[in-house]
């Protein structure tokens, strides 16, 4: 719990193999776990570029080709060396290939990459706000924080809401009302903030959700750290492909993010961030 903005855990240079030890399903999501004996312990909010060591390609549209970015969900296995866990949702050829892997198969990984969450201001209540697969970096953050957290998670439906089990004490909202509150997680957030007390918000999810989180927090002068997504080719600043608009101009999200301060974002940021689903 020592992350300070501006610092980062550096990655070993070059891709390394990660042997999968477990594959678990949580409703619509898959959790892949594997040993990373030579890797450093990542900061919460950092990510890895992943691909399968075998048959990365030959899927829909003759893809995937480039590695894909995934937040670290959780670390473990202090005894026998570092274990990394990732949370995946199959949305295209890359995630489909990764989701079909099983224990014993091998990933090629690069990371940890990017800059993760910064520690909360002392005395602030910590709110973790996640949407869909965006809950991933919140789990490791909850694990590492030595303060209590309020966890608000939004999902499409019950099948996806199964992912809520990955955090403890989560309050859930679903779009279809099948589990928890019928509505948006950002409505839950507004209520929580309006209940009073100094709070700090950590959020990850689809761009429209993050935009509401940003605006809601900005209105109330609540500090927010937002973990964004953008299409990435490399993850280490090499391609200049992952830029998003920020107060500092177009910045490479893989290098300056994926966690950005709400204050340096605007609605414009979220109009282009994301994997392109909604842009």
């Amino acid at each position, binding site marked *: 719990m020592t992350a300070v903005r501006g610092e980062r855990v550096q990655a070993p240079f070059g891709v390394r193999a990660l042997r999968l030890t477990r594959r678990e399903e949580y409703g619509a999501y898959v959790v892949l776990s594997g040993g990373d004996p030579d890797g450093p312990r990542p900061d919460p909010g950092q990510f890895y570029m992943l691909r399968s060591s075998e048959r990365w390609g030959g899927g829909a549209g003759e893809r995937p080709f480039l590695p894909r970015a995934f937040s670290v969900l959780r670390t473990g296995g202090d005894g026998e060396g570092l274990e990394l866990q990732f949370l995946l949702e199959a949305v295209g050829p890359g995630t489909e290939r990764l989701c079909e892997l099983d224990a014993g198969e091998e990933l090629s990984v690069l990371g940890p*990459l990017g800059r993760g969450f910064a520690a909360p201001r002392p005395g602030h209540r910590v709110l973790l706000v996640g949407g869909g697969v965006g809950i991933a970096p919140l789990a490791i953050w909850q694990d590492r924080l030595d303060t209590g957290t309020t966890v608000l998670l939004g999902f499409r439906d019950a099948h996806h809401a199964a992912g809520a089990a990955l955090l403890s004490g989560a309050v859930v909202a679903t779009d279809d009302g099948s589990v928890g509150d019928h509505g948006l997680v950002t409505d839950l957030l507004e209520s929580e903030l309006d209940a009073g007390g100094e709070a700090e918000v950590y959020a990850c999810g689809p761009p429209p959700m993050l935009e509401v989180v940003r605006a809601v927090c900005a209105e109330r002068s609540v500090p927010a750290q937002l973990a964004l997504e953008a299409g990435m080719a490399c993850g280490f600043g090499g391609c200049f492909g992952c830029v998003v608009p920020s107060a500092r101009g177009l910045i490479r999200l893989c290098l300056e993010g994926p966690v950005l301060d709400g204050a340096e974002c605007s609605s414009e940021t979220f109009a282009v961030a994301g994997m392109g689903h909604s842009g």
Partner: protein
Amino acid sequence: MNPSFCGLGLAHPVINASGTFDAIAAHRVFGDALYEHFPFAAFVSKTVTVEPRQGNPPPRLWELPAGLMNSIGLPNKGLEGYLASDLPVLAELPVPLIVNVMGFTREQVATLVGAFAAREEVAALELNVSCPNVETGLIMGADPDEVSRLMNVVRPLTEKPLIVKLTPNATDPAAVAHAAQEAGADAVSLINTIRGMALRPGTDQPWLGGGTGGVSGPAVRAIALAQLVAVRGAVGIDIVAMGGVASGTDALEFLHAGAGLVAVGTENFRDPSAGSRVSAELDRLASRTPFSGAG
């Protein structure tokens, strides 16, 4: 293999393709391990223009079968910014520095070449001519006469090796290469990315913020090889070959076809240490196959 490319005395024949590796960013991400295991025999920096550029609006990337399409749009700090912030850092790299420059007029290119001619940190210059000359409307690198006129202006400005980077979007790259050689180029490099496009799924609107993009990666390697062979037949000067190199086998094919150096581009995105792997594989292959060098 002891490449004598342009007299630079490089340790092996594998360098990076411009715009596919940011050594300064990579140092932040990987730390000193980057310098200790630097993957390239020379470092080519991303294209520098006279004025700073933001680059194209996102999205800038579109994945292709065994390839990538980008519309990055040459973001850079401009000449002054590069000289002030980047050059001092890049000068500390463990390998020679090749600076890639582009101008929208001959005068702009001259400004850039003139500025770098004076800097001993710079081992060679690569001229990116894959852009329109705003005065003539012609893509500089698609027209032999444009390239001659450009070289006539910039050649007298420096004794450093000048490498003309050809565009593949031309009817006859070999003719352009020949014009470059005749006007005093020390080498040519090829291929730059091939013009491509994708639509936002289900719409008639372009996906890329820049409208069109440039295709790179294994998908273009056979096209690069055909252009390399055509160019090799037309010039005697050194050639840096690139386009989809992902393995020592790929690199060896380009060397067999007459390249003096091979550049790794898109493959860096799949693994930042790809350059080291390619040059190690090349070593192993070269010790098996009789290879007499080229160029």
